[in-house]
């Protein structure tokens, strides 16, 4: 018997998208498979690694721990939504580039979304707060030092207004 499908409508990076999914479809899989937004990475698929973190209604959420059908009606921001309208890097992405905050890059989308929301809540984190901000995301390459630096650099970039933060643009 084919599985029952559910109509799901959600706004992803500002664009309304409609998908039909079985109840068991994870949000991470709906983004990657149904919407072809493969920037969201799936690591552990049980909520530990943080690679799949996206913003749901502005808050970081593990997309592997949320059913796509539960996301009906929400506003989702993935890593694809963090850049500038002209295709340039957003402030957190720019900071990662400047500070060498990534090596293989697999964990990076989860860090970028987490830090984007974290800096909105706390625009000027202390060093300890910057570390705490990323405590729920695993990186197996960098040793985290440059990621913490990138958090602090992104805070500066946003404060300087050199780049317009995601969500602030018209």
């Amino acid at each position, binding site marked *: 018997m084919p*599985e*029952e499908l*559910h109509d799901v409508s959600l706004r992803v990076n500002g664009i309304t998208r409609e998908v039909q999914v*079985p*109840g*068991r479809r*994870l949000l991470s*899989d709906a983004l990657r498979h149904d919407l072809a937004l493969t920037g969201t990475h799936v690591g552990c*698929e*049980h*909520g530990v690694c*943080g690679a799949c*973190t996206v913003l*749901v209604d502005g*808050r*970081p*959420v*593990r997309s*592997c*721990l*949320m*059913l796509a*059908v*539960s996301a009906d009606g929400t506003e989702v921001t993935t890593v694809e939504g963090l850049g500038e309208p002209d295709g340039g890097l957003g402030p957190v992405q720019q900071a990662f580039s400047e500070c060498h905050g990534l090596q293989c890059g697999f964990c990076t989308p989860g860090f970028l979304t*987490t830090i984007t929301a*974290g800096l909105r809540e706390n625009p000027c984190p202390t060093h300890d707060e910057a570390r*705490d*901000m990323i*405590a*729920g995301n695993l990186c197996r390459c960098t040793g985290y030092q440059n990621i913490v630096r990138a958090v602090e650099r992104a805070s500066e970039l946003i404060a300087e207004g050199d780049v317009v933060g995601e969500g602030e643009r018209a």
Partner: protein
Amino acid sequence: MKPAPFAYRRPTTLEEALAVLAESPDAKVLAGGQSLVPLLSMRLAAPALLVDINRLPDLDHVTATADGVRVGALARHADVLASAEARACQPLVALALGNVAHATIRNRGTTVGSLVHADAAAEMPVVLRLLGGSVDVASASGRRTIAADDLFLGPLESSLRPDEIALEAFFPALAPGAGVGFEEVARRHGDYAMCGVAGLVRVAGGRVVEARAGYLSVSDVPTVVDLTDSLADGVTDASLAAAGEAALADLDPQEDIHAAADYRAMLVRHLTGRVLRAAHAHATDERGEPDHA
């Protein structure tokens, strides 16, 4: 790792949700899903039906009164943690919540869901039990209040029936003269603790009249031990050490993949003393802030 197929319903009224549950013996209730979805993905759980309660009205409240803190079934950990009223009314709730997983998980996970998930390695079940709180539940046949002492039956097993939905948790307010503390040790911040201790000390007339501690990740169920006798003659290094030994006499720390039994026992000794010292300092501190808030 994908969940097995299940039917999915998202009722918009409590009556509808309870009616669906009453007709479906193999259903699970989905709130935040931060524990349930991994169980589904690992196929440790494969219910025939998932009843998503996220669209039920009037369940996302966090309210504090003179009696205590009431937390609705859809209040996220992050919302409870952010409530200044809840923190002032019963500081132990926020103290423990800061140790519940990571901020990203707390954004979605619910406090009530964590309680009825009944994980002995989780923070909030032992907090509810130490404080003598309760959970209000409803089914198609009526409502009842389950006291924390009657809620936790075994590993991941609560006394809720399959047709019931937990609607609200109640954490009693901090009593006059009482103080609280909380500490846990985990391999990494935000991981499941190898041992965690919640402590409550009440002082009257300069003497400790109540001292209890709750333990997570030590037994199959969240366990509370009365340590009043150990501290009755004062809070000293010696009496705190005695309290740690007294706690161990009531507990039987087990070995698992995360920690040896001896190491857990050592954590029980050390954390018991530290947490009771902090709770005593909080109880006798007129600023009313927990020592390590």
